[in-house]
């Protein structure tokens, strides 16, 4: 202890019983921390899945906040004029649902190591872009009717919710694109598998989120 400015003197004292759980070597069955920090492909996949589940929480909180604002704003004053939802939304919804199905195909192919699954990835990508294009058309249709973001609180929320969701979905599109390009970029197959798996789960979440938003917009009409 020569490094201390004032040397520590440890006086002799009757030792006391320490608190905390008793000392024991780690058991195989110990919950938590029993494995130790692992770096095998399976460990990494698990870690990224935990990360995704954690990372989706704030996305959820974002939309929960928008929802509470929605409810408050609608109930608050008499200037709310519900807009008619553009019918193309139904088609977009179908596209997104199908894309979730193909994303799952890609994910299972990749995780079970049954080949690159590039075809399913490609289809999902195209469907995702199709959905975004469909949303764009929906905005165009509203704008053609003279309904813009500031026209009415209900249109404000329409644009806000669809745009926020669209931006998040765009993130998913980029992830899928990265997964599709991963083999070209000479990423190890293990990394590609993780990217496909995470992107697909994210995609499902975006799918559910869209259904929720649609229900919210629909019920408020």
């Amino acid at each position, binding site marked *: *202890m*020569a*490094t*201390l*400015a004032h040397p*520590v003197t*440890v*006086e002799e*004292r009757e*030792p*006391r*019983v*320490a*608190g*905390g*759980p*008793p*000392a024991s*070597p*780690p058991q195989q069955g*110990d*919950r*938590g*921390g*029993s*494995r*130790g*920090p*692992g*770096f*095998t492909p399976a*460990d*990494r996949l698990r*870690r990224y899945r*935990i*990360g995704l589940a*954690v*990372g989706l*929480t*704030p*996305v959820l*909180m*974002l939309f*929960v*906040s*928008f929802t*509470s*604002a929605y409810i*408050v*704003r609608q109930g*608050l*004053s008499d*200037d*709310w004029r519900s807009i008619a939802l553009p019918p193309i939304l139904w088609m977009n919804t179908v596209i997104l649902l199908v894309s979730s199905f193909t994303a799952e195909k890609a994910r299972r192919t990749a995780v079970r190591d049954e080949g690159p699954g590039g075809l399913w990835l490609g289809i999902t990508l195209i469907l995702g872009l199709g959905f975004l294009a469909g949303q764009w058309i929906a905005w165009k249709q509203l704008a053609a009717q003279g309904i813009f*973001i*500031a026209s009415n*609180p209900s249109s*404000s929320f329409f644009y*806000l919710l669809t745009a*926020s969701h669209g931006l998040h979905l765009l993130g998913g599109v980029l992830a899928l694109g990265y997964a599709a390009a991963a083999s070209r970029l000479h990423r190890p197959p293990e990394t590609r598998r993780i990217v496909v798996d995470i992107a697909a789960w994210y995609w499902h979440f975006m799918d559910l989120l869209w259904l929720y938003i649609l229900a919210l917009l629909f019920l408020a009409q």
Partner: protein
Amino acid sequence: MSEAHAEAAVHAHAAPTGFIRKYIFSLDHKVIGIQYYFLALVAVFVGMFLSLLMRIHLVWPTAHLPLVGEIKPETYLTLLTMHGTIMVFFVLTTAPQSGFGNYVLPIQIGAPDMAFPVLNMLSFWTTFLSFVIMLAAFFVEGGAPLHGWTGYAPLSAIPSAGPGQTLGADLWIISIAVFCAASLMGALNFITTTLDLRARGMSLMRLPLTCWSWFITAILGLLAFGVLAAAGILLLLDRNVGTSFFVPGGLVMTGIPVKHQGGSPLLWQHLFWFFGHPEVYIAILPGMGVASQILSTFSRKPIFGYRAMVYAMLSIGLLGFVVWGHHMFMSGMSPYSAFAFSVMTMAIGVPSAIKTFNWLGTIWRGRVRFYTPMLFAIGFVSLFVSGGLSGPFLAQPQLDINLHDTYFVVAHFHLIMGVAAIFGIFAGTYYWFPKMFGRMMNERLGQAHFWLTFIGTYAIFMPMHYLGIAGHPRRYSQLTEIKFLEPLMSLQEFITIAALITIGAQIIFVINLFWSMFKGPKASVNPWEATTLEWTVPSPPPHDNFGGRVPVVRHGPYEYAVPGATRDFVMQDEEQPVQMHS
């Protein structure tokens, strides 16, 4: 085991060599932790400088001040806003959690790094960007905003509401939104790391309390920052594209009717405080962890009531999400809601008291070693109690309606959030400095720094309770014309002088910090004779923390004075057989 060993060596990223990858865009959690720490250090000096200008202006209104010149009432509000924002976000949220958490958490749980090193680097640089955007608000036309750190609408929502409410306010909101993104990335990393990277044998009930506090803080951040981001987005839309989420109808600003209608300023308050109250715990929880760690180490006793400490922190975190309304008693809420918020707020007093008594129980009859980290940890407890005692008063709606807009609230939150959290940072600095920089800080200077700061902050903030009870309102630049406040002027002068001295005393700290970094005596592996894993590795630790070794944990974190042990402390990974439970 040896397989995992090899794996770890292969997969934990290799040590970088170039200067840029090593010190600037580093993936190493230790470098990133230090980057966060220095960002906060810069921020705290900016924030302190702003507060100094305010204090001087309050008592010597005609004084000409550097950089700002004449202080108009609007200028004062600008200083106030930027002071609060910088302190809360870039100091109290940044140093205790992102700074120390990043540096220490992976080592304490026995991991080679954070779960996602690239994300970790990104979150630091995003925080940095956010800070730059915040500072940029000073230099745009109209200057920085004046809507306070709480950004209440409609003041914050209407660009014509005052100087600084144009571009400055936009930058402020964007900076906060970017900060939210950065904090969310950080929280994600902390949570995944704690869940998935713990060493073998590091069960949850063997985690050091510091790790628990960082973990719980990360969960609070994860739930709170998304809400603030949502509020910020809505506010930006109100300001820039003409929506009306927060702006009511019939508003007239500088003689011109505002076009918005139907929005709700209270909606902003709800969203803001749903974030804002958990935020105060984001600032203080890491300090609680650090204090627990240090009190136990320097009392040479196990922490009193480890499990109770964990459950108290968990319940503080949980309750923190249902009390936001206590900031809004003035908003005209129904007395029933006010009552509910009041009861739940006071319920937080229970876990807070449990923590306090357990800290005292830890010191009680310990063989206390009064080194600087210990002094600051004790100071933390003292300030937490002094600041916390005014909480239950403010939690009474009837009392709060009188006290809300007065210096009483300023006293409350500065003691408990401002200074207590800063004491947590100081305690952590003096405690982990040897590990971080491989050298010891100067003990004499440390003690001088402690006493001057401790007495100084009490001298600044205690009298503010009195000012508040006497009716002195907060957020005003000048009250010289008001008769009943005149007798309070001498007290205000006293506070300003105390502030000058206390801020001056921080120079001692800075000198000690930088001098010791290069010239301090070399630190051993475990200078404080502590038990947690960071004290089993060299000071400073190698790139992968454990030098290829994979630690296995066999003991709880605070096994001091264990019967039958060879020393008065047992390291967490020690194999020595210890008989317990005779």
